[in-house]
């Protein structure tokens, strides 16, 4: 190895004209083409794009871990001036983990299940610095404390499955920091985590970046997160970098149509389903071997010009006068970037009708066998506690909360997959709380339907799309003959805006968004009156999310459906819901209209939740409130208020009331309900979390 001292003013990582292909038996599939980017010392670079755009491939290429089929077919990757593409395995091994470290998307899968945390951490300095075992464990202990994990000694001796998701991700970060790398690659590090946990991780990563002066390559599909963490960013589309530059500049003065379309398809504060609808990017992401001639984004671009954009490969061109801002667009100088969004027809607000669904004091307890060896003691998981609300015809009620808050249990009880422990569920004046789904009649079943989170797993892979919808029609006893049902199936495909030819396709031939449309068609097959949408768009890419959300809204408008929208994504909730219900540990902590919930006074948990959501708008100023610790277990909830262990307002309540008593539900003006001990005076002093800076 040539150990020349490296000049810190030079870039840490320089990727030049990198091209990567995967080789299958059939063909060569180019995954990344002509990709260039530079990361300076201490700088954090964001890579943004939708799934399949090649951003993870770039990261793995830097690690030189592309697997058997992947090959770097052109260009160079220079790390501290040394070309990684020509390094031997042995040289690479010395770099990996010591100079370049990586943080992964799924922390649970990235940790060895059969090794103690301490051993996995200590391994790094033992390999790279030849440290003794004792010293390495000592260092591990220190780093574990650095990533703000409580009780480091216990954690070092734990196995990965004994930690929560957030703790596991902190361990993965600690592992990456064990040998103080010069470059950290973060591949969607918070995608699998809850928002409040995400906020903590993001803060940690930023602090550590400053503390150790580490450069970062931050991969994410979440633009808000990139704005929070990165200095510069690079937007990728279909294997190419389409725009790169300073984060704030790209956010405010984007110079590529794709970047613009991306921003228009995410719900920012101010977007509204009726007056300012989202603009979905038309069409689908091209498959790697079906990329168009010329500009890859051409077929989906509003500014497309035949004969020019599809004539030849488009090269990156510099946007002058600015800080290394480049765009891969031929027409960027001609487009009027400040033109307002082409006015989409503002839609009528759906009138809200009679009460369709009414829940009163619903409780759902599970009993689990306690003790590790099945010894008699039973424990009770209180998944839902005294849930009361109404939902009206044509209304969208959002149910918000982090994992484990009981929102999915609630959906299961409503659907009849579980029966409630006590309380009542009235569906069109019919009491259904203790009727499991097997005993419900066809009408009830077809009028309450569900759209599932993961469209990839909820369609039968061996049945074509049309058959699956017809099957639902048969079960719901719709239509008198096969012909009638077939016709109805085609109508349903029209309803979800899928071409009729899709009836013959198999689920594997569909993209994620298309599959979710089939899921929606299936849910509406029996003329559903109440639809529970359990995170219907969280598994989809942003550009597709907008289209699917709009579709749901359109169908709702037409059919006057009541939509129960379960989500953890507050931006989308704010965009589409009429009323919001915030849940924490099985309790409804706040409920009101969208405006009431998103404006002060807040419940302290709602406040923290709002402040944790990254917003991709440079004009928005957010107060940072990072919750300490994890959500308490529902088996062993804290006494008194469920949120008291993490609440920052606790000191404002006299006499330690929060520790002792469950707070009452306070009803503020306009029917806004907050379950909190805070007095009305204190609540009135709350400031809004999100402010738009005056321009």
């Amino acid at each position, binding site marked *: 190895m040539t150990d020349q001292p490296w000049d810190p003013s030079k870039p840490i990582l320089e990727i030049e004209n990198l091209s990567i292909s995967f080789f299958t038996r059939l063909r060569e599939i180019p995954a990344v083409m002509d990709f260039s980017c530079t990361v300076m010392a201490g700088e954090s670079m964001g890579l943004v794009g939708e799934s399949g755009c090649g951003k993870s491939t770039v990261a793995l290429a830097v*690690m030189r*871990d592309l697997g*058997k089929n992947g090959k770097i077919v052109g260009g160079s990757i220079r790390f501290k001036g040394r070309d990684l593409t020509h390094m031997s395995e042995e040289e690479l*091994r*010395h*770099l*990996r*983990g*010591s100079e370049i*470290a*990586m943080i*992964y998307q*799924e922390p649970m*899968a*990235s*940790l*060895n*299940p*059969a*090794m103690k945390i301490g051993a996995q951490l200590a*391994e*790094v300095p033992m*390999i*790279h610095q030849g440290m003794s075992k004792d010293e390495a464990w000592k260092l591990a202990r220190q780093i574990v404390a650095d990533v703000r994990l409580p009780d480091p000694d216990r954690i070092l001796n734990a*196995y990965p*499955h004994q930690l929560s998701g957030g703790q596991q991700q902190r361990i*993965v970060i600690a*592992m990456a920091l064990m040998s103080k790398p010069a470059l950290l690659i973060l591949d969607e590090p918070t995608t699998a985590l809850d928002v409040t946990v995400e906020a903590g991780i993001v803060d940690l990563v930023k602090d550590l970046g400053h503390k150790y002066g580490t450069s970062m390559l931050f991969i994410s599909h979440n633009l808000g997160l990139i704005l929070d963490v990165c200095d510069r960013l690079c937007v990728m589309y279909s294997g190419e970098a389409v725009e790169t530059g300073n984060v704030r500049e790209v956010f405010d003065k984007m110079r590529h149509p794709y970047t613009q379309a991306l921003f228009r398809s995410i719900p920012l504060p101010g977007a509204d389903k009726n007056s300012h609808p989202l603009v979905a990017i038309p069409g689908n992401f091209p498959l790697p071997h079906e990329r168009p001639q010329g500009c890859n984004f051409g077929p989906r671009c509003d500014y497309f010009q035949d004969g020019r954009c599809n004539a030849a490969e488009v090269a990156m061109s510099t946007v002058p006068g600015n800080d290394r801002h480049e765009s891969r667009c031929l027409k960027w100088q001609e487009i009027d970037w400040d033109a307002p969004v082409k006015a989409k027809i503002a839609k009528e607000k759906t009138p809200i009708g009679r009460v369709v669904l009414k829940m009163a004091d619903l409780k759902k307890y599970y009993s689990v*066998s306690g*003790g*590790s*060896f*099945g*010894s008699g003691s039973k424990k009770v998981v209180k998944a839902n506690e005294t849930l009361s609300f109404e939902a009206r015809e044509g209304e969208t009620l959002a149910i918000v909360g982090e994992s484990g808050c009981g929102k999915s249990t609630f959906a299961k009880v409503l659907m009849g997959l579980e029966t409630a422990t006590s309380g009542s569920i009235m569906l069109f004046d019919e009491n259904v709380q203790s009727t499991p789904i097997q005993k419900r009649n066809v009408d009830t079943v077809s009028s309450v339907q569900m759209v599932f989170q993961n469209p990839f797993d909820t369609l039968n892979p061996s049945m074509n799309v049309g058959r699956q919808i017809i099957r639902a029609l048969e079960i719901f006893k719709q239509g008198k003959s096969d012909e009638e049902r077939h016709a109805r199936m085609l109508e349903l495909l029209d309803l979800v805006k899928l071409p009729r030819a899709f009836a013959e396709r198999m689920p594997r031939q569909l993209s994620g968004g298309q599959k979710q449309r089939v899921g929606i068609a299936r849910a509406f097959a029996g003329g559903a009156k109440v639809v529970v949408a359990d995170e219907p768009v969280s598994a989809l890419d942003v550009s597709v999310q907008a289209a699917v959300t709009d579709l749901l809204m359109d169908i709702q408008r037409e059919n006057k459906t009541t939509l129960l929208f379960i989500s953890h994504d507050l931006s989308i909730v704010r965009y589409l819901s009429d009323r919001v219900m915030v849940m924490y540990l099985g309790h409804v902590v706040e409920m009101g209209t969208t405006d009431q919930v998103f404006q002060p006074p807040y419940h302290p948990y709602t406040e923290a939740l709002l402040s944790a959501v990254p917003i991709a708008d440079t004009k928005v100023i957010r107060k940072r409130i990072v919750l300490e610790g994890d959500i308490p277990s529902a088996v062993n909830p804290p006494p008194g208020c469920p949120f008291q262990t993490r609440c920052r307002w606790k000191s404002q309540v006299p006499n330690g009331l929060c520790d002792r008593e469950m707070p009452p539900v306070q009803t503020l003006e306009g029917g806004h309900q907050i379950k909190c001990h805070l007095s009305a005076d204190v609540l009135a002093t709350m400031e809004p979390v999100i402010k738009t800076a005056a321009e």
Partner: protein
Amino acid sequence: MLYFILRRFGVMLLTALALTFIVFYLTNLPPNLEKLAKSEASARMTDEDVASWIEKNGYATPVLRRYGEWLGVMPGWTMLQEDGTTRGRCIAVGSDPAAAPRFCGLVQGTWGKSTVFKEPVQKILGRGLSQTAWLMLAVMLVMVPTSLLLGVLSGMREGSKLDRVLSTIAIASTATPEYVSGVILVALFASATAGLSPILADWGWISGKTLFQGTATSAMDDITFWNFALPVATIALYGIGYIARMTRASMTEVMTQQYIRTARLKGVAFRDVILRHALRNALIAPFTVIMLQFPWLLNGVVIVETLFNYKGFGWTLVQAAGNNDIELLLGCSVVAVLVVLVTQLMSDIGYVFLNPRIRLS
């Protein structure tokens, strides 16, 4: 942990009772008893004589009662004979009936007497098991390390040349049953007229007529490499292929896991990725298979012990079954059932140590 083991023991006991009852019922079917009567008394008995013999020897009572007697939870039968002496299950011929115990069965340690070997069943089983134990030990010592090594080597780089070669060997060996591989091995290495031995003898490399001995009878007194290698190899070959395939499947799966990538990108050398990160996770599945091999070995030794004339457990089982030796057959089944259940318990406990995610409950 203790509670778990106790509960498992309870389940094992129930399983053992059920299994032994099935064997007991089948071996005590009327035609078997008739055969027993004819072989014990006279081959030319009339049907009435058979019936009276069966009655006089306590075989006429209901099957459940006889099972209870055999287990030793019901008092043994007694019968006043015409000449004034008392016969009974627990009364040895010529001894004082008053001094005899009331119960004599499995629980009391009375396993009955073999009709073929004219010896108590325990003694025969003890002798056979100790012989078989040596054979099994040798097989395990050869089979487990070899197969794990084969499996790990072929699984660590799926699709490589090494993988293909080792997989071919493993499939070939596991596709060859013992009675085929045993004969092939004998023909190759232990025949004075075929295979390698005559060539080696011609060259003067071996002093005897054959390289290995074709019979393992001498190994019962003194185990040497030359008399023991062929039976051990015959049993091990089949198992090696099987376990190696399992290990390979498990290993290839582990190698695609994300934590292996994590380890690789931490800069861990390939050898340590295998040894420290992959191996323990990859051994979880084959461990069960290895534990399942114990009962399967009992079955494998039947053929091999007969083939190589090694008087162990398998050979005893064959003799008992061939000669309608009811008591011995029952004894064999008790041993077999116990071996199966104990090894399964061991595998469940071992599992917990390999896989920290599993808790006993």
